[in-house]
């Protein structure tokens, strides 16, 4: 089983992840239409690039935009959650040891205490993100079961990883579940809302170009996000 999930299934998951996201990006860009979107993407390019960069940049920082500043609680949750999800798996000691064994290279890795800490933060913020969906009427009305499912897909590798690490009732089974749930997440990203992995950048860049090229970017110093 271990050989299966770390061999062919891992190859499959990573292939689907990278190819799927690649296809997403290409299809998004090919589906842009200057006339329908009413943005001259290929004319006034410098204004477009400037607008796109501004639009992505300010949103990448907690409290970098008026919207983040108006929602401090959510901002902290969102950034904690995302930083944990992105950083932990890449710089985890155990992952890098494996990487070294299999591929002969590794990234810098954080201490196990740090990765435990980030993992717990991811789980705590996920709980609050879920509670928020239940507690706030304006979020509840747009929440569907699908939203909870995605949250679950995103946190399962962390729950199982923690369980495996601390060997809660045996290591081997948890490890298999951990690898499987990681693969499920990788495969889910291109096919679900989790595609905001690239969609965030594409959509933000597009709106930034819209404002940069057409809606005022040529007549002011750029949108005050």
């Amino acid at each position, binding site marked *: 089983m271990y050989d299966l999930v770390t061999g062919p299934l891992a190859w499959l998951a990573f292939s689907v992840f990278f190819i799927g996201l690649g296809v997403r990006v290409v*299809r*998004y*860009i*090919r*589906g*842009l*239409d*200057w*006339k*329908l*979107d*009413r*943005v*001259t993407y290929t*004319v*006034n390019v410098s204004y477009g690039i400037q607008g796109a960069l501004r*639009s992505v940049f300010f*949103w990448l920082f907690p409290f970098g935009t*008026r*919207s*983040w500043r*108006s*929602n401090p609680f*959510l901002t902290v949750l*969102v950034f904690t959650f995302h930083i944990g999800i992105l950083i932990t798996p890449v710089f985890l000691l155990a992952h890098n040891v494996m990487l070294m064994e299999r591929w002969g290279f590794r990234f810098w890795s954080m201490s196990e205490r740090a990765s435990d800490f980030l993992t717990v933060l991811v789980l705590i913020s996920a709980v609050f993100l879920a509670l928020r*969906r239940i507690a*706030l*009427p*304006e*979020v*509840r*009305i*747009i*929440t*569907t079961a699908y*939203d909870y499912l995605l949250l679950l897909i995103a946190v399962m590798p962390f729950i199982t990883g923690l369980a495996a690490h601390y060997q809660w009732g045996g290591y081997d089974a948890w490890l298999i579940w951990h690898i499987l749930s990681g693969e499920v997440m990788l495969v889910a990203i291109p096919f679900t*809302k989790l*595609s*905001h992995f690239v*969609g*965030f950048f*594409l*959509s*933000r860049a*597009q*709106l*930034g170009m*819209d*404002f940069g*090229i*057409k*809606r*005022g*970017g*040529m*007549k*002011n110093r750029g*949108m*005050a*996000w």
Partner: protein
Amino acid sequence: MPEGTLCNKKPVNTKEELLTLLADKSGKKYYEEMNALDVDAPALKALLDKTCKSRIRTWLEICAHCGMCADSCFFYLANHRDPTQVPSYKIQSTLGEIVRKKGNVDNAFMQMTMDTAWGKCTCCNRCGMYCPFGIDMGVMFGYLRGVCFSQGFAPWEMKIGSGMHRVYRAQMDVTSEDWVDTCQWMAEENEEDWPGLEIPVDKADADIIYTVNAREPKHYPEDLAHAAILFHLAGENWTVPSEGWEETSLAMFAGDWEGCRLQVQAVYDAMERLKPKRMVVTECGHAYRATVIEGPYWAGLKSGKTPVPSFHYVEWVAEALRTGKLKIDPAKKIKEPVTYQDSCNYIRNAGLKDCAREIMSYIAEDFREMLPNKEHNFCCGGGGGMNGLGRYREQRNIGLKVKRDQILATGAKLVITPCHNCWDAIRDLEEVYQVGIRWSFLKPLLLKMVMVPDHLKPEEE
């Protein structure tokens, strides 16, 4: 496939059709007929396949349902944080459903969609600034209006408005003759007070071609006179076109994209015909948005720009004050607290916030900013055609509360509103809530403050 005689999928293209529609008071019969209007699902699907591309589909798909757009919407705030007013909910439950069901929706659904697209959104685009993914629900509602219009599910006034543009190339029944007559009348009416005052029609190669909102010749001709006097005082070499003088676009509010194209093409033709150096448009927000910002795309201009550089009236005023073409008498500056209504269409969606502040620095001693302001300002409450829709009057009046409270918080009793829709909304706001405020375009205020050079003063008798 049942189609009403008034409510159907065919846009209005003749004067007779317009008159029949207008004769149906408040659209009573029109809305009755709408109850029997069939949805042409295959046509709807075909339209979506052709026009709903990756930008909108991605927006609909990746919306994280986080609710950060909620507080950005003045309708949500004005309706006691009613969750059904959350922008994401409004668009997902309408356009989102239509896309998911590939156009397979029924009459009741389309009517609900229409009531959402026109009665719960002014396309102010504020939500787009508050979404982490940059999902601009205002843009989507604009698109959704087009989808509704193509199926005949548009408010009565919108169908009339689009028809006006198709028949008259103006949002009201003002013909070219009416317009030119009004220009002459206003010039004659004021030439005694302002010797040498002219409203030159169809003068080729002028520095400025001036274009207006049809309401001005129809209901407020003095606005045209004010514009003429200010150009006269500034020594501008200007003209108005006999055709292609109307900048507004109820067709844009209606979602009648072909009507939009026809309308802006008339203005661009005037630019090509008269070859002015630049165009200046009156104090109207959506007119500028339609003709200067969106229009080039409807007309298929690949540069994304109008044939000659185009400016909103506030840009011209800021420039005239900066360069000294117009000089303000310091003794006549506005002394009382005064605030400025940032119009969504030329501030948030066209970037002219600094012009407004520059003007205020010349004319006001106690300028008070609303909070929030500039591109983050709230819609006046009457944008996107909302002011003119009888069916949604009550919702409109509820929505005005946000602007009312914003204005009251400044302590100013005078609101400068260089936008026809804002001007109307704030007038109605005073009528509904009676809070004791006044509102004004820039032109009449400037006329009271501007210094008149000696050689332009009327001769003393």
